């Protein structure tokens, strides 16, 4: 049974492993990708933020692309995100009157257009999500859209080995290398989901063994209409409906709006309907510019503002963008899962022979751990009674006792498991509220903080791995923990370790507290730590720290300085009225030294011609060492020396000195 359990665990993990949003978006047939036209995306201050097709016959410049997208304002700055580069490759100024520099748009470019003047015209805020599979333009229908909202609205969370960053923003806004799901998405942001730098343990081929995915628990979500019914909002226990494993087979439902908890339930997208759709219509439903609104996560907000009508013209490019990694995913997954199933069946057959022995040993173990019967119900699901997450009774072991008995990893794992009972587990609604609404409830409750030990970390790993119900499927608590592991690892790169039990419990309680509840929750140790506004039914906004606001303001000030928009006040220097300095000032440079005629010289007609030449040379040497005569000055000096007046003065000067 142990071997069977391990195989089932691995199979469940593999089946649970969802691909990243970019990988998710690649399930369509590869034939379309081959015929897809190269595209680029224009977002920001443009009238039409969308995909644009690169014509194979004509070269499109950035200037033309921005004009084509309808830039808002007379002059815009265009940042170009190119290829696999994680930052803007370059920035170009474009205006209606400016000349085209000839810089070409390349396939897959993301042009972020920022107007240099305040925009008077009303426009729709937008952003872009960039994954391995392509770029998805996103319409921001609300003021406060978090990164998680965008990821949710565009397909799901990235896997654990992926990292979310804001690769490009408007000027003056700092880039976020490791963005958390709670970070607010601004107009013109380009969110990039990239693989982490460090090597990750991969499965076969390109399959990434992701541990969770954003919408895993939303498969069995109640109808969205109940979300909007504020008065009837009840935190439900995770439904007992078996979770559908996201099989790698090409299933149109993967991207169907039926997976979207915000979709209109009145319009279920069945296969027949999808088949009847034309290719263009499919593009509309699947491959449109995504509109994200956090209001969808708030119970009172209408769902109509979530998905605006999508342009038809962008369908083919986005389809192509989503198809890229699909070919590399399918074969290996099928082989791997098939191999697992074969191995599991063989082990199951072998294990049936010794069922009696195993049953007896399990019974003895259960008897030995009588106080942890709830754990055993889950842990030994195949042989215990059918226990579904919704019917798990309240933990019989008090929390103090759990802490006290947490001496070994194994025992702790067995005793810690009952904490995740049905009452403590978040319902689908709560999960939705936690993921889509409040991103702040990441603080650990005070009463359970003492449990955050290494043993707890160990038992968390066990719980996550052992979270399989009697049907051999991953149960909801484990899904929830997996999701939180991903969220936690994304929110803090330093805490990429498996989620600790204490933290998970605190998360759980906070999540429960977010939504109005009618059920009394037995033990919420962190109830006092819950912020008051979290209990309210008002839309929960992500907290923007003051430093971030100041930083943004600083950069906007810098932008003003760069553009010479700041007026300059010319001030008068306040010098001391009287100051004493030492030394003799050099004064301005003199052109030449002509001593004053102190007295009338004596007659000099008796001088010989040889003596005159000698004295002339002496006068030249008397020049100030400070003055370095140039060639012209030397020429002028010769010229002046040639004149009789200067010669006379020099001779008189020398005569005076000789007389003295």
């Amino acid at each position: 049974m142990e071997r069977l359990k391990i195989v089932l665990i691995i199979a469940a993990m593999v089946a649970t492993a969802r691909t990243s949003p970019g990988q998710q978006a690649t399930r369509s047939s590869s034939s379309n990708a081959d015929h897809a036209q190269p595209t680029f995306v224009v977002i920001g201050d443009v009238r039409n933020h969308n995909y644009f097709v690169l014509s194979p016959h004509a070269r499109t410049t950035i200037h033309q692309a921005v004009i084509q997208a309808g830039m808002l304002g007379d002059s815009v700055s265009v940042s170009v995100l190119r290829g696999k580069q994680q930052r803007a490759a370059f920035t170009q100024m474009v205006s209606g009157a400016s000349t085209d520099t000839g810089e070409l748009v390349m396939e897959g470019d993301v042009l972020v257009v920022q107007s240099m003047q305040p925009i008077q015209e009303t426009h729709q805020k937008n952003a872009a999500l960039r994954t391995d599979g392509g770029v998805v333009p996103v319409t921001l229908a609300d003021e406060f859209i978090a990164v998680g909202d965008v990821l949710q609205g565009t397909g799901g969370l990235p896997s654990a080995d992926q990292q979310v960053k804001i690769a490009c923003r408007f000027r003056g806004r700092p880039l976020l290398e490791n963005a958390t799901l709670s970070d607010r998405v601004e107009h013109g942001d380009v969110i990039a989901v990239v693989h982490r730098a460090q090597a990750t343990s991969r499965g076969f081929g390109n399959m990434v063994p992701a541990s969770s995915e954003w919408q895993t628990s939303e498969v069995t979500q109640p109808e969205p209409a109940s979300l909007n019914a504020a008065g009837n909002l009840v935190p439900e226990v995770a439904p007992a409906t078996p979770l559908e494993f996201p099989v790698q087979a090409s299933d149109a439902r993967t991207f169907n709006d039926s997976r979207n908890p915000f979709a209109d339930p009145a319009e279920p997208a069945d296969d027949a309907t999808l088949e009847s759709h034309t290719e263009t219509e499919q593009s509309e439903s699947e491959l449109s510019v995504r509109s994200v609104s956090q209001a969808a996560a708030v119970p009172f907000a209408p769902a109509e503002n979530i998905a605006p009508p999508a342009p038809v013209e962008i369908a083919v490019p986005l389809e192509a963008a989503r198809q890229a990694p699909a070919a590399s995913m399918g074969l290996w997954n099928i082989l791997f899962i098939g191999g697992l199933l074969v191995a599991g069946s063989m082990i199951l057959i072998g294990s049936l022979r010794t069922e009696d022995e195993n049953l007896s040993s399990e019974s003895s173990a259960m008897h030995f751990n009588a106080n942890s019967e709830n754990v055993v119900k889950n842990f030994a699901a195949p042989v215990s009674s059918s226990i579904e997450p919704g019917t798990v009774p309240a933990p019989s072991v008090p929390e103090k006792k759990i802490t006290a008995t947490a001496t070994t990893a194994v025992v702790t794992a067995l005793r810690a498991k009952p904490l995740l009972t049905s009452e403590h587990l978040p319902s689908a609604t709560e999960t939705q509220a936690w993921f889509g609404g409040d991103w702040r409830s990441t603080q650990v409750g005070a009463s359970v903080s003492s449990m955050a030990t290494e043993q707890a970390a160990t038992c968390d790993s066990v719980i996550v791995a052992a979270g399989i119900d009697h049907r051999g499927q991953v149960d909801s608590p484990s899904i929830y923990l997996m999701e939180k592991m991903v969220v936690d690892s994304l929110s803090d790169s330093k805490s990429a370790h498996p989620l600790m039990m204490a933290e998970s419990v605190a998360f759980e309680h906070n999540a429960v507290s977010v939504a109005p509840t009618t059920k009394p929750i037995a033990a919420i140790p962190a109830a006092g730590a819950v912020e008051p506004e979290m209990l309210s039914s008002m839309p929960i906004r992500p907290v923007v720290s003051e430093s971030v606001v100041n930083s943004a303001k600083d950069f906007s000030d810098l932008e003003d300085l760069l553009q010479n928009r700041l007026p300059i006040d010319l001030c008068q220097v306040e010098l001391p009225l009287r100051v004493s300095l030492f030394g003799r000032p050099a004064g301005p440079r003199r052109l030449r030294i002509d001593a004053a005629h102190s007295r009338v010289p004596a007659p000099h007609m008796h001088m010989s011609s040889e003596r005159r030449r000698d004295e002339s040379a002496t006068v030249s040497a008397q020049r100030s060492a400070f003055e370095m005569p140039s060639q012209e000055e030397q020429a002028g000096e010769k010229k002046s020396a040639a004149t009789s007046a200067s010669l006379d003065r020099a001779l008189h000067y020398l005569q005076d000195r000789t007389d003295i």
Partner: protein
Amino acid sequence: MICAIDFGSCWIRSVFRNPRTPDRLSMYAEKSEYALIPDTGHHRRSLADQQIPFAECEGSLAVVGNNAARAQWLSRVPCTPLFVEGAVPSDDPPARQMLSVLTEAMLPPVDAERSLCVLTVPGVPDESHRVQKNAEFLSRLVRMRGYSPFVVNPAEASLLATCHDATFTGISIVMGAETTSVCIARYGVSLAKKSISIGSNWIDTEVARQFQIQVWDEDGNAFIDMESIRQWKQQSCPHLRNAVGDRERMMSRLYSVVLDRVTRTVAQLLQSTPVRNALHRQKLAVMLSGGATMIEGFRSLLTERFIEHEVAERIQSIRLAPDPATAVVRGALIFGELEARAPAVEEAA
């Protein structure tokens, strides 16, 4: 506190954000010269009556900065530059002390533990001992005020201040009184730069020599009257391409000589390996700044020089900065603000 100070051979300018009005810039601008006044009781009384700050030196009184022009009439000796040929004078101790007084008065008081002051140093920034002493001396003056000095090239600073619409890519030419700096940058990163020791003072001096525009003191010493040349340029607004009279034609020829050297420098920089690798054959915008570029016809004359030296094919446009005189100090302030934000950005990254 972040501030910038531009030690120019003609003007010293400092600029900073006033903490009380952060959306405006406060600027100090003082002429980098001093006037020598005879040290007599009459002169002292005249200066005191007019509330003109002065310094007592050995044998004379000195009036520094803008006040020198107000006290000039008291002396027949023309004003003395604080920087001789773009360098801190080694044989003029009062001038160095006046630089210290001016620096202290033009920099705002420090309000933080680590305040940054970006400064430009006059002269050609080569490896000579003289220039190193210049930078060392001026940095020490800044440090004495409580700031951490940060020396930048004037052309790089001007690029930050003027080339924002060209994505900080292009050629920045700063023509000052004693030095002309050329910098080629791509996206704000300097690829190649060079300074040549020639500027508008050389042109004025040659014009004054040629036309013997001089003044004499009471002892018969002759001095070149540079102030007269500057006033003539301001009042008559000579045009380099439409020169009228011998003096303007002379000035046009001298400007051509200077721009020949500048163009040769630009051509040399364009052929340098970093520029060729980064920019290939990309056309570049030329941004002009500095007081000497404000004369009429400068751009046209430079265009002519570019054509003559076969550099024109690499030039996209030649533009004059909207604030040629203050672009360098403003760019230095941008440099400082970017430098101050760098740790925060790195931390956020």
